[in-house]
């Protein structure tokens, strides 16, 4: 299955960074792009949600969030025992990997659209629900009883722009419905892929500085940043298939589980677990896992989704 073309903008950005080009996305444009993407994704989810019974989604959501808790709980002992990382670093990285990446999810959606594969649009709700719990688990693992600035950390995550705009978009989309949102279609839906491409250009630039930094941290973390998303995707596709999602839906859930947060999580962890080295967690999540997911993960997770849906579909 061919690559979704927007991922090449990431390569272009990374190449510009590695070649020390003077390319720089102004921070105001970066802010605008991230606000745009979060709102657009929220709105899209809200419109999809308008056609679904909320009770049914609540039950599925509960299962999806409960299973997702396994990811930091697997990652933490692996980082501690196999990697020999400090408790703070292991907890922080486990939180990053349990949390989710909005941009990885967006590229997965673009991938499905490009191949005209249908999916359950309400899965966007999981983006909102999965961001927070893993961060809390990660902080608990990292601190093991030490004092944590919970109030500030929770405020940072709950009222930070990512959950605020996703939830706000969801509610606006839900209230407006597909007809009401039509006047906004041209801005939020038609231009989406172009904006995503620009955002990926910036992510490539940032990631290139992380890749260079990452070289000093050895092969264990590099291996972890590749293997952990595959384990998480396996759990995600199995869960999705058991919940009866379509192939597209299972692939999106696998991608959500496999993705690691590199925007919301670093900010939250810097406050809650300041003794953890942010270069390790951001380096792994953005420098390795994010490009791995874009180039190798997405086709692999699609294959996993097909495999599990057909397997479980045939036996049940």
């Amino acid at each position, binding site marked *: 299955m061919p690559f979704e073309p927007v991922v090449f903008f990431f390569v272009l950005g990374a190449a510009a960074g590695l070649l020390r080009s003077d390319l720089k996305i102004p*921070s105001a444009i970066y802010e605008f792009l991230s606000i745009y993407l979060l709102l657009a994704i929220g709105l899209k989810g809200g419109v999809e949600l308008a056609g679904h019974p909320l009770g049914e989604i609540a039950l599925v959501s509960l299962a999806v969030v409960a299973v997702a808790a396994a990811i930091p709980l697997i990652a933490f002992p692996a980082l501690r025992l196999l990697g020999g990382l400090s408790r703070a670093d292991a907890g922080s990285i486990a939180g990053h990997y349990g949390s989710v990446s909005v941009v990885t999810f967006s590229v997965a959606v673009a991938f499905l659209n490009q191949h005209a594969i249908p999916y359950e649009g309400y899965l966007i709700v999981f983006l909102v629900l999965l961001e927070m719990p893993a961060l809390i688990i990660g902080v608990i693992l990292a601190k093991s009883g030490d004092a944590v600035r919970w109030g500030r950390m929770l405020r940072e995550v709950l009222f930070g722009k990512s959950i605020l705009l996703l939830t706000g978009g969801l509610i606006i989309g839900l209230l407006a419905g597909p007809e009401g949102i039509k006047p906004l279609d041209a801005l939020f839906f038609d231009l989406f892929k172009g904006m995503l491409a620009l955002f990926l250009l910036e992510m490539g630039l940032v990631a290139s500085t992380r890749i260079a930094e990452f070289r000093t941290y050895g092969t264990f973390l590099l291996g972890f940043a590749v293997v952990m998303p595959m384990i998480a995707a396996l759990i995600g596709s199995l869960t999705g298939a058991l919940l009866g999602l379509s192939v597209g839906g299972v692939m999106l859930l696998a991608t959500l589980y496999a993705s690691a947060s590199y925007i919301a999580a670093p900010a939250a962890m810097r406050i809650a677990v300041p003794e953890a080295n942010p270069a390790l967690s951001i380096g792994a999540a953005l420098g390795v896992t994010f490009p791995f997911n874009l180039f190798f993960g997405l086709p692999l997770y699609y294959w996993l989704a097909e495999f599990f849906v057909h397997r479980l579909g045939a036996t049940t």
Partner: protein
Amino acid sequence: MTAQSKTLLTIITEVALENSLIDDFKRLGVTGYTIVEARGLGTHGLRTGNWRKEGNIRIDIVADSDQCARIVEHLRSAYDRDYGLLMYSCPIDLHV
């Protein structure tokens, strides 16, 4: 033109601390401060600032020398171990 003798305290730290510091300043009775975004190189590595999350901020506070000393003492004990934090001060003439 009249001038008062004051101390200018400059703090360079991580953008992640901005909200915490503003709360601390309120508690410590700081009546004014100026915050600007910053980038540069230090013992915590290159802070490019091209991505808001990894940028620095520079805070200027004009206050009495005693109050500046209290602020420095508090910030040192609360943040210096885990965060990039650089503080310096100098006597100034405040023109009012």
